[in-house]
C-alpha cells in the first residue's frame, strides 16, 4: 500500500480533511470516506456519468478523478441541492416531469443539468441533449429528462426575475 497523503476538500460547503491513498478515486472518497452515497458508480470508465459531481462548478466524472486531485477544491454533490430542505428547481422538475425511474443516474443527470443551466439559462432541446450526452439513463429514454431541464430553466428564470422586478418596483 502506498503512503497516504493529506488532502482538504470543501464538499458541499464543509471543509473535509483526510489522509488518503494517492490512488483513491474521488468517487470512493465521497462515497466511502465521507459516506455521501448519493453519487453512484455505473461503469468505472467515464462513460455513464452516474458519478458526476461538480468540481469548482464544473461537471466531473468522479470515477476518473483522484481524490488528491480535488485537494483544495470545492466539490458539490447531490446531497447539497436541497438547501435548507427546499428542493432545487432541477430536483422539483425531475419529479414533476417524471425524469427518473430507478434513480441511479439521477444525481449525475441533475448536476450536469445545473452546470448547463448556469452556462445557458435558456437551453434548446438540442443544447440539453448535447450537454447530457455523457450521462446515460437506461430507464427513461431521455424524453422526460429533457422536459425536466426545460421546465427547471423556466422556473429558475422566473425566480431570478422576481427579485429584479421587486428591486425595480422599489426604485
Amino acid at each position, binding site marked *: 500500500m502506498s503512503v497516504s497523503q493529506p488532502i482538504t476538500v470543501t464538499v458541499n460547503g464543509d471543509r473535509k480533511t483526510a489522509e488518503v491513498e494517492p490512488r483513491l478515486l474521488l468517487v470512493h472518497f465521497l462515497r466511502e470516506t465521507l459516506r455521501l452515497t448519493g453519487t453512484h458508480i455505473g461503469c468505472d*470508465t467515464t462513460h455513464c456519468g452516474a458519478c458526476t459531481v461538480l468540481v469548482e462548478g464544473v461537471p466531473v466524472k468522479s470515477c476518473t478523478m483522484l481524490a488528491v486531485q480535488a485537494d483544495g477544491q470545492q466539490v458539490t454533490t447531490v446531497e447539497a441541492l436541497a438547501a435548507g430542505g427546499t428542493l432545487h428547481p432541477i430536483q*422539483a422538475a425531475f419529479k414533476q416531469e417524471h425524469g427518473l425511474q430507478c434513480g441511479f443516474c439521477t444525481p449525475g443527470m441533475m448536476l450536469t443539468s445545473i452546470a448547463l443551466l448556469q452556462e445557458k439559462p435558456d437551453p434548446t432541446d438540442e443544447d440539453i441533449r448535447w450537454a447530457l450526452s455523457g450521462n446515460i439513463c437506461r430507464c427513461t429514454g431521455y424524453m422526460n429528462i429533457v422536459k425536466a431541464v426545460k421546465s427547471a430553466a423556466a422556473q429558475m428564470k422566473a425566480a431570478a426575475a422576481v427579485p429584479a422586478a421587486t428591486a425595480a418596483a422599489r426604485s
Partner: protein
Amino acid sequence: MAVETPLKGNIGDSIRRKEDDRFIRGRGNYVDDIALPGMLHMAIHRSPFAHARIKSIKTEAAQAVPGVVAVVTGALLAQHKLAWMPTLSGDTQAVLATDKVRFQGQEVACVVATDPYVARDAAALVEVDYEVLPAVVTPQQALEPDAPLIRDEKDGQTNNHIYHWEAGDKAKTDEAFAKADRVVSLDTFYPRCHPSPLETCGIVADVNSATGHATLYMTSQAPHAHRTLFAIVAGLPEQNIRIISPDIGGGFGNKVPIYPGYVVATAASLLIGKPVKWVEDRSENLISTGFARDFHMSGEMALSNDGRILGLRVKLLSDNGAFYADAQPTKFRAGLFHIVTGSYDVAAAHVEADGAYTNKAPGGVAYRCSFRVTEASYLIERLVESAALEMKMDPADIRLKNFIKPEQFPYMSATGFEYDSGDYPRAMQVALDKLGYQSLRQEQAEKRKKGELMGIGVASFTEVVGAGPGKHYDIAGLRMFDSAELRVHPTGKAILKLGVKSQGQGHETTFAQIVTEELGIPAADVEVQEGDTDNTPYGLGTYASRSTPVGGAATAMVSRKLRDKAKKIAAHLLEASDADIEFDQGKFFVRGSPSKSKTIQDVAFAAYTNLPDGMEAGLEGVTYYDPPNMTFPFGTYLVVVDIDRGTGQVKVRRMVAVDDCGVRINPMIVEGQIHGGLTEGFGIAFMQLITFDEEGNCLGSNFTDYLLPTSWETPRFEMGETVTPSPHHPIGAKGVGESATVGSPAAFVNAVIDAVAHLGITNIDMPVTSDKVWAALHEKGAAE
C-alpha cells in the same frame, strides 16, 4: 414549483411518484450504499481464457497481501458441496471453477479483504496455471461432430447439444405449405446483447455466526424465489434466510439469476463470521452476468396469392453459453418463443428449437421482455416485411389483411396461446393517422426518384406477459402466482406489502393507486413495501411484465376482500343490513340515501374500536393471486428513417408508438415505461452488441465497445394509445414495462429495409450499424 398534486390517485390519475423524493435527494438506498460494521470486501479472480483446463491454482501471494482475510477457491467450496449450483433451467453452473474454465470471465477464485482496493490487488495475484483448449464460439460450431466437448463433467453429455423442443402442429403446417402459392423465407440472427442496468449486481451478505441467521442485501428482482433457492443451494434453513432487495438501479432481467458472486460472498460471510460485500464492476457485469438473445432463426411463411398467411415454420438454434441458465418456466425450453405467430391469424404453425453450449457466458435472461418473446416478435415482424416485399404489398396492408380480428378474441393460436383481447386494426390506424403514413409514402416515392434513401418501418407486435397461471408456468418449480398483503391502520392509513419488487417501474405509486381505486384511501396514505422477504408475502418477483398483471391483480383482490369486511362494519355503524350497503369512492352508504355515509377512514377506526358482535378485529388481509391466463399487450410502431448513401448512416427522423396495455393505472408512468423500452429497442437495433473473437474473447466488455443510446442519438418519440382491457384481470390492466423493447427493434430494422429493398437488400442483421448498411449498399453498387 408546485410538485404536489390535488389528485387522489385513482386509476387514470397521473400523480407524481411517491418514491422520487428520496432519489432526487441522493437518499436512495442501493446495495453498494450499505455499509455494516466490520464489513469485508470481496473481489473475484476471473478466467482470461474462454476454454482451458485448470492445472493448478496458487493463492499464497494473494494471501500474503496485508489486509487479506481469506482466498476462496473452488476446492474450498467443494468441501462444502458448493462448487456447483443449479441454474434456473435445471442445469448446473460452476460457482468457482474446479476442473475447467468454460468462458472468459468465469469466476475462479475470490479474495476477501478489509478494503476493496486490497481485495482487487490480491485477486490479481492469484496464480492459475491453465492448459488452453480450443474455444467454441458459435452454436453451429458447437454442434459439429468433432467439436470440443464443453460440459465434459456432466454424466451422459457426449456433445454440446442441450435441448430439442417443438411447439405447434408439424403435419398441419406441412399441409399448409404444400397448398401455398408462395413461400417467403428469412434467415436472421438476433445477436447477443446485455441488459446493462446502470447499477451492476452486488450483495452484502451478513451471516450471524451466533444465530445462524443470514441477512442478504441483494440486487434481486425475485427476492422470495432467491431465498428458497439459497436454502436449497447452501443448505441453510429457509427461516434463517432474509433477503432484502433494497432500491435497485434498473434490472431488465439482469437481476433475475443467482450469480456465483452472491453465493461465494454468502459462504465467505458464513465461514469468516463477518459481513462481506461484493459489487461487480461494469466489465464483470458485461462479461459474466445474464446476457440476452443470441438466437439464430430461420423462418418460412406460406402465403396465398392474395397475401393471406397460411402457415409458419420456424427453426431456431440458440446459443446458451457454457451453462444453460435461461430464466424461464420449466416446460418451455425456448421460453415463450412459440408466440411467434404474433398478431396474425395463422392456422398452422410449427416451431423447432435446439440449444447448444458454447464457450460464452451463460444467461439467456429475458432482457426487458417475457421469456424469448422479443426474439419471436422480431422474427414474425421481419418475416411479414419480407412477405410484403415478395407480394409487392404495402407493409401496413398485409398486416391489416392478416390481423386476428377483434371479434375473434379470445383467440387460440396455432401454438397454444389463448389471446385474451385485442383490437389490432385500431392500434394500427391510430398509428398510421398520427404519422401521416400516406403522405410519407408519397415523399418516399419522390425521394426515390432522386436517388435518396428513405424508409418507413412498420411493426405490429403482440406480447404475452404476466405469468402464470401457476399450473403452466413456474420458475425452478415455484408456481408463478403473486401476492399482496394490505393492512389498514385505525386512522385509515395503509401499508401494502408485495411479493414483486420494483427496479424503477414506480410500484410505490402504481400499486397504491390500485388501493385508492378499490378502497378510496388516497394514494398518499398508502405506503408500499417490497423486497424484504421477512416482511412481505411470498411472490415470484418482477420480470416478464408480471407485476401489474399478477401483483396488481393481487392488490385489487386483497382490497376487495377488505372492502367486503368494511361493508359489514359500515352496516353496523349505519345500523343497516349488509346487503343494503353500497360503496363509492371511499364512502359506504345505505342504498338510496347517499347522504348518510361512513368513510373508509371511519370504518377503519371502527375495525379496531367498534365492531359488530362476533367479528374478528382488524382490517387486514393477504391474497395470493394465480392468474387464469396471461395478458396480451399489443401495439403498432412506425419509424421513418433517412439513410446517407455515402456513410451508411441511418437517421431516425420520426417514431410513432401506439401501445395498448389495457387499462392505464398511471398514464405518466406508463408513458415513461414505453419511452424507456423504445430506447432500449433502438439501442438493440442499432448499437448494442456483445460479440466474441474466435478465441472466445468478449469484444463488448465495457461501454467503449458496448454502445448504449445517449440523449444525443435517441429518437424523439411520438406517443399514442388505445385501451382494450384484459377481460380476466380485475382492473383490466395488461402490463407495459417491456412492450416497447419487444416491438420496436423490428420497426427500426423494417424501416431500414424499406429504404433499401428496391436495391435488392432484403436483410441486415442487428445491430444495423453504418458500416453494415454501407457495405450492403456498396455490394449493390448503390453506395456513394
